[in-house]
């Protein structure tokens, strides 16, 4: 046996863990090898040192901690956990679900014009659902609504104001028409229309009031912007308006048609529109650029108005948002390019 093999077995030799024949061979090698004997002695001393290590004791309270952790919970605790624990999960989940459903209902109501209309219990004339779902939405006819509200006497002015504000909040502001560019169409002052007790009933709405409503709305939506000085001047307002909304009402001009045009390039569209207006023998009476739309006001001869609107197709996707059924000889049209 070599020293290497013998040393590999010294540890087991020491522990008397070798098979008898192997033990015999190691013993024979050790008799003739002082180096390996010395190695065995060192190993033996090392093991003796290890045996001197004091036994470790578990910390005080260890048994109690283990048995407490291992102890099954009493039956009443398990029953209580089974019965009540789910509530701690269920109740917040249910509360959250209720809140979510409520929020969803409000959201759907806000985003669905049909629901709002049915809530008002009055059918809307010329209501186009796309008008309200499209963003930015065009101005809609409000005067009729006000007229109905006023005639029915069911809603207070405050509620009408809230209704108007609500409408405004849901829309991005379109441009207010410039009043100094009012067309030569005779129309009653808008401010009187909503409050007039003798306002026409639904279905008998004078055509002018509808378009005015759109314009009035358009104006009202821009109440954040200062009203053009010419508005007050042209109307000769006797006193300062009590609110921007009232000012808008008083300053509301009249128009015969409001058309929204979705364009890709507003600059090009403005040029094309100017050309079109000129081509049909009309004239541009005003233009205002806003952040998201350009408002162009024009007067177009009624004889070529149909041609005019059809030609708008070349500029962009257009939609008549409000239009007087009996157009005058000179049609005052407001176009919103966006």
């Amino acid at each position, binding site marked *: 046996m070599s020293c290497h093999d013998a040393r590999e077995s*010294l540890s087991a030799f020491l522990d008397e863990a070798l098979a008898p024949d192997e033990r015999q061979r190691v013993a024979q090698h050790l008799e003739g090898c002082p180096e390996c004997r010395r190695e065995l002695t060192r190993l033996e001393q090392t*093991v003796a*040192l290890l045996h001197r290590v004091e*036994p470790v004791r578990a910390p005080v309270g260890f048994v109690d901690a*283990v048995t407490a952790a291992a*102890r099954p919970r009493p039956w009443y605790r398990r029953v209580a956990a089974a019965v009540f624990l789910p509530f701690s999960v269920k109740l917040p989940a249910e509360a959250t679900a209720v809140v979510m459903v409520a929020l969803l209902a409000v959201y759907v109501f806000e985003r669905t014009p049909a629901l709002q209309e049915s809530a008002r219990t009055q059918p809307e004339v010329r209501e186009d659902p796309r008008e309200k779902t499209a963003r930015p939405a065009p101005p809609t006819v409000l005067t009729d609504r006000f007229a109905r509200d006023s005639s029915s006497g069911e809603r207070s002015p405050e509620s009408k104001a809230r209704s108007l504000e609500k409408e405004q909040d849901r829309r991005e502001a379109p441009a207010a028409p410039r009043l100094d560019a009012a067309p030569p169409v005779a129309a009653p002052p808008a401010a009187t229309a909503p409050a007039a007790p003798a306002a026409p009933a639904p279905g008998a709405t004078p055509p002018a009031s509808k378009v005015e409503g759109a314009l009035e709305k358009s104006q009202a939506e821009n109440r954040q912007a200062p009203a053009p000085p010419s508005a007050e001047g042209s109307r000769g307002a006797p006193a300062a308006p009590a609110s921007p909304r009232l000012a808008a009402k008083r300053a509301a001009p009249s128009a015969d048609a409001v058309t929204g045009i979705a364009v890709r390039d507003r600059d090009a569209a403005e040029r094309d529109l100017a050309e079109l207006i000129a081509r049909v023998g009309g004239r541009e009476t005003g233009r205002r650029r806003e952040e998201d739309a350009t408002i162009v006001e024009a007067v177009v001869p009624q004889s070529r108005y149909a041609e005019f609107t059809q030609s708008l197709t070349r500029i962009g996707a257009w939609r008549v948002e409000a239009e007087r059924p009996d157009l005058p000889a000179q049609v005052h049209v407001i176009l919103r390019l966006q």
Partner: protein
Amino acid sequence: VEAGDAPRFLDRLRAGETTAFEELVITYQHRVFGVAVRMLGNAAEAQEVAQEAFLRAHRGLAEFRGDAKLSTWLYAITSRLCLNRLATAERRLHRQGEETLLRLAGGEWPDAAVERGEVEAALHRAIAELPEDRRIVVVLRDLEGLSYEEIAEVLDLELGTVRSRLHRARADLKDKLERFLP
């Protein structure tokens, strides 16, 4: 056959008798904790592992076949838990660098041992510095007094592997503890 391995006691344990389990913990707590603390070098961590070992034993008592000694079974559970934890800890320590490893080797447990003497402190440090697979063998053999066969069973190793690992562990310790040898 140890007292804890008496058939009557095993029956009580398997039946889920609370006092039987308490007796089991009382009987083996120091051995289980001892292996854990020598393997982990940290008393708090060792207590946690020792408690977990007993709880696992408690859950598995119904399946304990009784063909091994209870102590062997408990050592097996404890050793596995320690080695698993060290494998996780070692990965963490490798990332933190060797300095942390050395700090662990000279951590809470060896520091406490310093008070009991330089030799014992050196012993603990030397044991702590052994590779884990050798450390567990030398702990089970020279500190816990298990036979080669029991160690092979506890660690699920071949007898020859136990022998060679033990020999290398002792040789390592001999070199490290040279100055304390007569």
